[in-house]
C-alpha cells in the first residue's frame, strides 16, 4: 500500500516510539479502553493490507489533538487520521453518519454553485452590517444549526448576533455575506476533500465579493479551517483570518470595552479547535476577567489539558461520546459555576444534547451558554 506508507512517512508516524503517552491523554481512550492512538499507528505501519483504512476505530478518533500536544516524537496524528480517512473514502468507506446523514446532505446541498440562500434573516435590526467592508464576519453554520437543533435550544445564532454587536462597539461595521457556505471543516475531517474544496472555493468567492481583506469569526472550527486549511488547499485566499477573541482581548487591554457588573459564576471550556489546535487560550479569559464581578472558575482540566466534548464531524456518535460529555459537565459542575461558557457551537450542541438525553436530574444543574453571546450581553449601554 504505497499511499498508506507515504501518509505514514509524511505525518511522521514512523517516529512513533510506542511510548503510550498519547493513549494516556487520549479523550476517547479515557472512556473506551479498546481505543488507542498508538495502536492505530502500529497497525497502519505493520499491516501490509488495508486493515488501517477498514478499521472502525479510524472514525472514532475525535482529532482533538490531545495526543499530538503531548507526543514527544512529533507525530502529526490529526493529519495522519485525516489522510487515512481520505484513503478510506476513496475506497468507498466512511464513518456512520449521525442524524440520518442530514448534516452531510446539508453540506452537499451547500456545495451547489447557484444557490440563493436566505442566510441573513436572523440579523438583529439594531446592529450595523454592510454588504462591502474591509472586515467580514464569517457566520458559518450557525443559521442551519440553530434551526436543525431547535429542540435542543442550541441557539447557535447567539454567537454571530453577539459578535456583530461587539464589533460595532469597537467601531467596526462588518460585511456579512449572503452567499456563505459551511466552511467545510467536517468534510475535510471526514476525508471528503472534493466537497471541502468546493465549499472553500465558494466561500472565497463570497468573501472576495465583499472586498474584505480581514475575516473575523467566533467559531473555532471555522477559524482554523479558514486560517490554515484554506491557504493550504486553495492557495492564497486574499484575506487574513482573526479570531474574535483576539480582537476583543486587544480592545479589553486598551480599555475600549465596558461591561456591566455581575455576580454570575461561570466556568470556561477550551474548545479543542481553539485551544490545543489554534493555541488561543488566554484571550477569552482576558475578556471574562474584564467583566466586573464575574466569578470565573477554572475546571480541573483546562488549557491544553482541557477535556474534549466528544464531538465528531457528525459521524460515529455513541455512548462513549455521551460519557465524555457527562464527564465534562460534571467537571464544570464541580467548580460551583452556574454557567458553562464555550465559544464552539459544536461543543454547545453536544453538551446540550447530553443534558437533554441523560436523566442528570440533581447531578448537573448548570446551564451551557455561548461565550460570545454572554460577553455581548454583558456590555454596558
Amino acid at each position, binding site marked *: 500500500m504505497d499511499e498508506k506508507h507515504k501518509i505514514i512517512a509524511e505525518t511522521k508516524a514512523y517516529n512513533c516510539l510506542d511510548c503510550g503517552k498519547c493513549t494516556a491523554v487520549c479523550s476517547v481512550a479515557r472512556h473506551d479502553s479498546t481505543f488507542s492512538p498508538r495502536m492505530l499507528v502500529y497497525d497502519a505501519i505493520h499491516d501490509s493490507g488495508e486493515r488501517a483504512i477498514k478499521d472502525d476505530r479510524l472514525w472514532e478518533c475525535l482529532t482533538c489533538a490531545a495526543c499530538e500536544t503531548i507526543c514527544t516524537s512529533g507525530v502529526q496524528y490529526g493529519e495522519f487520521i485525516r489522510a487515512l480517512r481520505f484513503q478510506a473514502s476513496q475506497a468507498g468507506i466512511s464513518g456512520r*453518519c449521525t*442524524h*440520518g*446523514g*442530514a448534516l452531510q*446532505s*446539508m453540506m*452537499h*446541498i*451547500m*456545495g*451547489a454553485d*447557484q*444557490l*440563493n*440562500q*436566505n*442566510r441573513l*434573516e436572523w440579523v438583529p435590526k439594531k446592529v450595523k452590517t454592510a454588504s462591502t467592508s474591509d472586515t467580514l464576519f464569517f457566520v458559518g453554520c450557525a*443559521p*442551519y444549526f440553530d*434551526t*436543525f437543533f*431547535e*429542540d435542543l435550544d442550541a441557539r447557535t445564532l447567539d454567537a454571530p448576533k453577539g459578535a456583530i454587536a461587539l464589533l460595532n462597539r469597537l467601531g467596526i461595521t462588518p460585511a456579512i455575506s449572503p452567499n456563505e457556505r459551511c466552511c467545510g471543516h467536517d468534510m475535510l475531517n471526514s476525508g471528503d476533500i472534493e466537497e471541502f474544496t468546493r465549499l472553500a472555493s465558494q466561500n472565497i468567492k463570497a468573501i472576495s465579493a465583499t472586498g474584505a481583506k480581514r475575516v473575523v469569526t467566533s467559531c473555532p472550527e471555522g477559524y482554523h479551517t479558514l486560517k490554515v486549511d484554506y491557504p493550504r488547499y486553495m492557495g492564497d485566499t486574499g484575506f487574513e483570518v482573526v479570531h474574535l477573541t483576539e480582537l476583543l482581548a486587544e480592545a479589553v487591554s486598551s480599555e475600549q470595552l465596558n461591561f456591566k457588573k455581575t455576580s454570575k459564576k461561570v466556568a470556561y471550556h477550551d474548545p479543542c479547535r481553539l485551544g490545543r489546535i489554534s493555541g488561543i487560550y488566554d484571550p477569552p479569559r482576558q475578556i471574562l476577567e474584564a467583566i466586573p464581578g464575574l466569578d470565573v472558575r477554572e475546571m480541573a482540566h483546562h488549557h491544553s489539558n482541557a477535556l474534549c466534548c466528544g464531538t465528531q464531524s457528525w459521524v460515529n456518535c455513541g455512548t462513549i461520546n455521551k460519557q465524555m460529555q457527562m464527564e465534562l459537565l460534571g467537571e464544570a459542575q464541580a467548580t460551583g459555576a452556574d454557567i458553562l461558557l464555550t465559544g464552539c457551537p459544536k461543543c454547545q450542541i453536544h453538551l446540550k444534547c447530553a443534558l437533554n438525553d441523560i436523566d442528570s436530574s440533581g447531578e448537573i444543574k448548570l446551564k451551557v451558554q455561548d461565550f460570545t453571546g454572554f460577553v455581548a450581553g454583558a456590555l454596558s449601554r
Partner: protein
Amino acid sequence: MTNIKPVSSDFEPKILGFVCNWGAYSALEMAGVERYRYSSGVSFVRLMCIGRVHPGLILKCFELGADGVMLLGCPSGSCHYEFGIDQTKQSMESIKKLLDILGLGGKRLRLVEVPAGDGKYLAQEINRFTRRIQRMGANPANRGSVQSLFEQVPVG
C-alpha cells in the same frame, strides 16, 4: 376521469413521493383502478409508515437533485401505528425552515394526509404539487445525479 393539465410542459419536475403502506397506498391503488390521472414525474417509495421518514432522508432526496418531495400518509388520528404521522408533521416545520435558509424553498416539501382509498384526492394533490414545483423551477442543488436516481426507482 380527471385530466389536469400542467402549467407548462417545458419543465418536467422530478418528484419523490414517500407513500405509507396503508391509507396512502390504498389511495394510490384506487387512483389507478378508477383511472384518475396524475403527473408522471412522480416516483413512489413505499414504506410502512410516514413516521419512518426522518430529516436526513428528506435532505438526501434534495441532495440527489429531487425537485420536490411529497410525504403521503394517513390522516392524523388514523395512523396505522398511532403516532407516526404526527411525529413527522412536527419535524417537518424545522426541515421546511432549513430548506428556506438553504435557498431551495420549504414549499418543495409537502405532507399530505390522504384518507384511505381516496384516489381522486391523491391524484389532485399530486398534480397540484407538481404545478407548484413547476412554478418554483428546478432544484438549484441538482448536480445531475437525479436522472440516474429516478431511472432506478420503479414508478407506481
